[in-house]
C-alpha cells in the first residue's frame, strides 16, 4: 500500500488547468523526483499536495496511524501535522528570528509546554526548554549549523538559508518531505553537498522525499523514480534510465512541445 496516494488531482484557474488529472503515489522511504519544463505546474502540484491550494477535483490520501486519510480540503497546518513537510522555491524562513527559534517553532506541536508553566517560569519550563534546545542542536549539527544558533535567519548565507529551511521541515518529524528546487541558486560544489545531504536525511530519518529540481545531474543521481510533468499533465514515470530514454520527455525539454 502506498504511503501517499494521489488520484486524478486537478486544479483549474479560471478555465486554465494548471494541473490536470495527476495520479501518482509515493511509497515508504523512497526518493522521488518531479521534473518538467518551466510553467509545467510542478509548484502548483506541491501546493495542492500540502494544502496551500485547494484542488478542483481529485483526492490526496495519506497512510497515517489512524489509517488512510483524505487530506484535500484540510488546512495546511493539519496536513503538516499529519506528517507532510515542505520547503519553498523562494525560501520562506522566519527572517527576523534566530536559527534556533526557526527550528523550535517547527517543534511547537511536539512540545507540551503549558501557558501557565511558561508565564510563571516553573522549573518544568526550564527543563522542557533545555530538552528542546538539545534536540535543536542535534538536528542542526547534521547540517553543520550548530554554531549559528543565535544568528538571525536573514543574516545567513544563501546556501545556509536553504539548509535551515530543510532542518525546519525535518523538525516537524515528517513522513514525507517535499523539497521545492533545493539546489536553485547553488554552485556545483554546494549542489554536490546538498545531494549527499538529501541522501543522508532519507536514510537517517527513514522518510520519503519528493523533490522538484531542474538540475538534471542531481535528479539522475538521487532519484529512484521520476515523474515528468508538462502543461499540468504527467507525461512519464519511471526510473532515471527510463526517463532519459523517453521520447516524450526529450521532446518536452528540447522544445518539441514549444
Amino acid at each position, binding site marked *: 500500500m502506498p504511503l501517499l496516494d494521489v488520484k486524478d488531482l486537478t486544479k483549474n484557474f479560471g478555465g486554465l488547468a494548471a494541473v490536470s488529472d495527476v495520479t501518482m503515489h509515493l511509497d515508504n522511504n523512497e526518493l522521488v523526483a518531479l521534473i518538467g519544463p518551466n510553467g509545467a505546474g510542478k509548484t502548483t502540484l506541491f501546493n495542492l499536495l*500540502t*494544502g*496551500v491550494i485547494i484542488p478542483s477535483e481529485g483526492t490526496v490520501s495519506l497512510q497515517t496511524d489512524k489509517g488512510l486519510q483524505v487530506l484535500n480540503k484540510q*488546512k*495546511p*497546518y493539519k496536513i*503538516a*501535522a499529519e506528517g507532510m*513537510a*515542505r520547503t*519553498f522555491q523562494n525560501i*520562506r*524562513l*522566519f*527572517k*527576523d*528570528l534566530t536559527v534556533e*527559534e526557526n527550528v*523550535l*517553532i*517547527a517543534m*511547537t*506541536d511536539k*512540545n507540551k*509546554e503549558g*501557558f501557565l508553566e*511558561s*508565564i*510563571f*517560569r516553573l*522549573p518544568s*519550563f*526550564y527543563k522542557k526548554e533545555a530538552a528542546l534546545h538539545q534536540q535543536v542542536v542535534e538536528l542542526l549539527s547534521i547540517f553543520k549549523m550548530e554554531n549559528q544558533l543565535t544568528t538571525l535567519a536573514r543574516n545567513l548565507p544563501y546556501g545556509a538559508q536553504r539548509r535551515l529551511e530543510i532542518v*525546519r*521541515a525535518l*523538525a*516537524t518529524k515528517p513522513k514525507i518531505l517535499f523539497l521545492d528546487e533545493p539546489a536553485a541558486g547553488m554552485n556545483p560544489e554546494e549542489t554536490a553537498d546538498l545531494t549527499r545531504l538529501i541522501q543522508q536525511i532519507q536514510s537517517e530519518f527513514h522518510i520519503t522525499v519528493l523533490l522538484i529540481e531542474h538540475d538534471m545531474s542531481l535528479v539522475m543521481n538521487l532519484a529512484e523514480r521520476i515523474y515528468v510533468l508538462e502543461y499540468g499533465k504527467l507525461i512519464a514515470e519511471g526510473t532515471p534510465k527510463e526517463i532519459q530514454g523517453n521520447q516524450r520527455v526529450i521532446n518536452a525539454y528540447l522544445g518539441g512541445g514549444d
Partner: protein
Amino acid sequence: MKKNLKYNAIWLAIAILGYVLIYALEMVGVIDQFAETTLVLIGINIILATSLNLVIGFSGQFSLGHAGFMALGAYSSALVTSAIPSVGGFLLGLLVGMIVAGIVALVVGIPTLRLNGDYLAIATMGVAEIIRIILNNLKITNGPAGLYNIPMLANWSTVYVLVVITTLIIVNFVHSRNGRAVMSVREDEIAAESIGINTTKYKIIAFVLGAAIASIGGALHANYIQTINPTDFGIMESINILIIVVLGGIGSITGTFVAAFLLGILDMILQNFGTLRMVLYSLALILIMVFKPSGLLGTWEFSVRRLFTHKKAKGDAE
C-alpha cells in the same frame, strides 16, 4: 538552571529597587502630587502599550481598537468597585474586566483576524467604536455622562506592581512555545502553516491576551482617576496607545517603556504651553517618525542575560 535563577533574581532586584526609589523620592518630596499623577499615567500607558505591542509587534496584527478593551476593563472595574468598594472588590473588578475583554476579543477576533493589514486595523477600530457607542447608550453605564465617584482603590504602588506583573506575563509569554509560534505568524504565515502552526489560533491567543491586559490598564484608569465616560475611550485613545508602541519600536518592550516615559514627560513639560501643547506634540511626533521611522529602539531589547554574557565574552578575550 542556576543561571536562570540568577537572571530572574536580578530582574526582581531591579523591580524592587525601582519601587524603593520612587518611594524614597516621594518621602523626600521630589515627587509631588502632580509628578505622581504623571507617573501613574505613564504606568497605565505602559500596560496598555505593551499589551498592544504583543498584538502588533509580536503577532504582527495591526489592531487599531485597543481603547475598546481598555473601556471594557474600566467600566467593569468601576461598576464592581462601586458595589464592593474594597481591595477584594478591586481584584474582582480586574478579573471581571479581563474576562469580559477576553470574551469580546475572542468573539471579535475569530472572524476579523482572518483579515490582514489595514483591513484588520479598520475592522478593530470599528469594533472599538461600536463598544464605545454601546457604552454611550446603556443605562447601567450611565450613558454619555459616564460613571463618577468611583472608589479610589488604585495608587501608584498598585500601578507599579501591575506594570511589573503584566510586563512579566508578556515577556515570559513571548519567550515560550506559544510566543514563538505567535512570532512565526508575524514572520510568514504560509511558512508557519507549512510546519503545523495553526496561525488563526495563535493570532487569537495573542489578541485575547492583549485585550485582557489592556483591560487591566482600563481598570487602573477608572480606579485612579475616579471618573470615566465613553469619550475617554475613543479612536484618539487607541491612537495614543499606538503612538507609544510605534515610537518605542514595534516589537520592543523596552522601547515601549522608553516611549511611554518620554511622551509622559513631554506631556508634563508641555502642560504650561496651553493650546500650543498639542501643536508641539504633533510636530515632535512627525519629526521623530521622519528621522527615525523604525522607532526609538527598533526591535532592540534590554537583557540581563546578554549583559552578563557580553561581559563574560570580553573577560574571556582578555
